[in-house]
């Protein structure tokens, strides 16, 4: 079991009704974590448009999660 912190940004904060979750997970990858997290939201977000990060770096969906990681889910940027 890993203790991780999950960050949601932009409209994904509304999808999961929070900006930060402290979670204990058995997921090995972000992909697996995402499936777990879907149970917490009413409406499934558009996964293809979401970028993911571990510890302040963009990573691939199949990246492995380690204990104490901070995982972020980011909707498409809309700055500028």
């Amino acid at each position, binding site marked *: 079991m890993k203790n991780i912190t999950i*960050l949601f*940004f*932009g*409209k994904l904060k*509304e999808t999961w009704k929070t900006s930060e979750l402290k979670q204990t997970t058995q997921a090995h990858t972000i992909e697996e974590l995402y499936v777990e997290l879907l149970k917490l939201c009413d409406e499934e977000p558009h996964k293809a448009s979401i*970028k993911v*990060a571990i510890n*302040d*770096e*963009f990573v691939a969906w199949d990246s492995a999660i380690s204990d104490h990681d901070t995982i*972020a889910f*980011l*909707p*498409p*940027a*809309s*700055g*500028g």
Partner: protein
Amino acid sequence: MFDISEETINESELRKNTRDPACGGFVCFEGWVRDHNQGKDVQKLAYEAYPKLAIKEGNRIIAEAMEKFTINKAICTHRVGMLEIGDMAVWVGVSAAHRDAAFQACRYILDEVKSRVPIWKNETWTDGESGWVEQE
């Protein structure tokens, strides 16, 4: 150098740091909050960032521009927090020996920042509603 700022963007300072009369050319872009967007009347807006990742990604974009184009200096700052109509949201400036490179690099940085840097816009409309803005 890329930065995010919670205060009004100090463009005269940014210009001073980017301009280089030995270079020949300077191009800058300023983006302001408009009173309408995608058909809605905007009252104000907030930009939210993932600060650490935004600064990393923004500086990666500046480095790419320095690599791709023959330019001397490039600076970009994006505002975050609550903004009113007419406030500056983003500033990009580039100095280069030739105008081509200056225009292309300025445009490249702006486009990449808008699509890649983790910053999100939440608009409050004049009807009192608010919402996250999808990319145009």
